[in-house]
């Protein structure tokens, strides 16, 4: 597997993790993790539960000491700096609001420790409560607030300190869907407004993609891919990423050669040409991937555009979900491919048993390395 890299911006306030490792006994929670979070960016750390996201965040906050590696913030090595001495604040997964303090006292806590004057604390608390739309809640206790309001208090309590980096550990996890969407927009707005670097941990791929400038996909303590949301979605580096963000049809293939700007592959006795710019490998075993929404269904193979790759198939399942219809189409070699067809036409959805032609534009396919290390791709429902 290639180590993901990104162009180094070289800003003064970048957060850099170099080969950070954390072991709990014999168990490696974070494994040789390296990444750079550019100053002022909204960075999402995306991964399944238990992949080491919280541990990574805790090492940046100083609540966990790395077994190896360094954490550098704005050019200063903070690996061994105590948490209270780091210009970093955290919005905890559990909020961790102080139950014996009022909302105003909670929000002003950090400033109080820094011995900011009472008057200034009061002013900034008022400002901050206005920012998170909790004006007038000053004298309440955390227990008297709803989950969404507590979450905003936790955010205000961290933001008020204007840290160099704000760490958010699945802060929206406990909220219901509607409030979560609302808070996503809100968080994004606040980040743009204050310009602080946000490192946002989530296991929700949609959340990561809609909010972040840069997404790092984590798996088993390592980073699988790092990049802009569109880049990660459109051109994943590994089979894990291809299936963790949305779903992909991955055909077991092997590279047979090159032809001009194309890489030639063979899969199940059929030959395909993939533009070289869409290939992560140039020889050996590979996966030929294509996203379900990039596949088109043609009832009449004569209507398939000449430039498209096409395979025949038989519809085995059809589920109508309103905005689109999701088909499973069995290819001649027995594998079922997933297809999302937009319901933009006037005719009804196709029925199981129909013989169709699946086709897609070659530049919509991508070629990934296939080795035994990579977890077998799974087709999961969206």
């Amino acid at each position: 597997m290639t180590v993901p890299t990104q162009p180094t911006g070289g800003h003064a306030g970048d957060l850099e993790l170099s080969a950070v490792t954390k072991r709990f006994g014999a168990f490696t929670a974070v494994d040789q993790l390296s990444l750079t979070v550019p100053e002022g960016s909204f960075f999402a750390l995306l991964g399944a539960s238990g992949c080491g996201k919280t541990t990574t965040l805790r090492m940046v906050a100083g609540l966990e000491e790395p077994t190896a590696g360094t954490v550098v913030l704005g050019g200063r090595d903070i690996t061994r700096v105590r948490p209270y001495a780091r210009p970093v604040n955290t919005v905890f997964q559990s909020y961790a609001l102080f139950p014996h303090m009022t909302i105003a006292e909670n929000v002003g806590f950090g400033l109080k420790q820094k011995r900011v004057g009472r008057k200034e604390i009061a002013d900034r608390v008022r400002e901050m409560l206005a920012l998170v739309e909790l004006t007038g809640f000053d004298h309440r206790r955390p227990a008297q607030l709803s989950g969404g309001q507590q979450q905003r208090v936790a955010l205000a309590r961290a933001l008020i300190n204007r840290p160099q980096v704000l760490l958010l550990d699945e802060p929206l996890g406990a909220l219901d869907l509607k409030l979560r969407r609302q808070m996503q927009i809100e968080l994004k707005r606040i980040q743009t407004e204050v310009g602080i670097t946000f490192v946002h941990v989530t296991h929700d791929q949609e959340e990561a993609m809609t909010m972040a400038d840069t997404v790092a996909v984590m798996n088993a303590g390592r980073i699988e891919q790092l990049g802009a949301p569109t880049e990660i979605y459109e051109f994943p580096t590994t089979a894990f990423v291809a299936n963790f963000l949305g779903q992909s049809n991955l055909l077991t293939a092997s590279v047979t050669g090159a032809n001009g700007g194309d890489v030639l592959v063979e899969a199940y006795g059929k030959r395909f040409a993939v533009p070289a710019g869409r290939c992560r490998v140039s020889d050996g075993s590979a996966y030929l991937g294509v996203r379900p929404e990039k596949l088109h269904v043609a009832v009449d193979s004569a209507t398939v555009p000449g430039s498209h790759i096409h395979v025949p198939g038989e519809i085995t399942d059809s589920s109508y979900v309103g905005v689109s219809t999701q088909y499973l189409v069995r290819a001649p070699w027995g594998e079922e491919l997933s297809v999302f067809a937009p319901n933009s036409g006037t005719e009804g959805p196709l029925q199981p048993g129909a013989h169709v032609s699946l086709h897609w534009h070659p530049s919509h396919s991508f070629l990934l390395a296939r080795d035994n290390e990579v977890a077998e791709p799974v087709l999961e429902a969206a």
Partner: protein
Amino acid sequence: MSTVLATSAGSGTAYEPPPEPVAGGRRRRWLPYALLLPGFAWLGLFFAAPMVSLFTTSLYDPSGSEETGYQLTWAFGNYWDALDLYHEQFLRSLLYAFIATVACLILGYPLAYAIAVKGGRWKNLMLVGVIAPFFTSFLVRTLAWKTILSDHWIVVGGLKRVFALGDDFHLINTEFSVIAGLTYNFLPFMVLPLYASLEKLDPRLLEAANDLYATPWRTFRQVTLPLSLPGVVSGTLMTFIPAAGDYINAELLGNPKTTMIGNVVQSRFLTIHDYPLAAALSFVLMAGILIMVLIYVRRAGTDEVV
């Protein structure tokens, strides 16, 4: 009430009384009281009745005796006598109990903290260690301290040697030994409530404070201590109240000048058989403690922290 409802409805519809409760609902209404009965019976039998009896005794004619019998003459003068004759022992009891409570808090807080926060898998074993003294009698343990603090034992001998103290240095039968005995005997009553409240403390709150620039000491002052205040309040009450009424420690470890009010009550009741005065003393002690506890609990503002 009905007007309020009608107005808030705002449509001029008449207020409808709630439907008559059905028979089943009626039966449920007295059920809670029925369930409380055994508790009330217990309280009445073992708390209220003895109190009434003791209070009556405190108002008997003080000139009565076992032989001549007692008469209820509403002799409120007994209370005056109690305060007049024994105010010194009263104040001493409160002072000793106060010092012992503070000592218990100073010793007990770090102990409870260590068990609750740092105990890990040794937690239960350490708790057993705190409770273990209860396996033997209070009296026997206090008698053991009589030996430990005696002039012939290594404690006094060692102190004398190390600090080159003279022959007039004693620990036993001093104020120190009485207060030390009280502290020793009531320490578990301080540690257990403290442990219970520190055990509940969410370590994530400490991390949050740490993350928000609070040093370990400031985290303790602003998060740990306030959140363990309910434990501090109940621990101090559970230490102070029995310590103020105790007589065993002063009896076994003290001298005539360290007599506490418990000793007076004990000797009035059991040796001199002056029941009216003994009963009056008991009530003064009870009232004194009650007033102090009420003031303390109000000041500590437990309703805010619990």
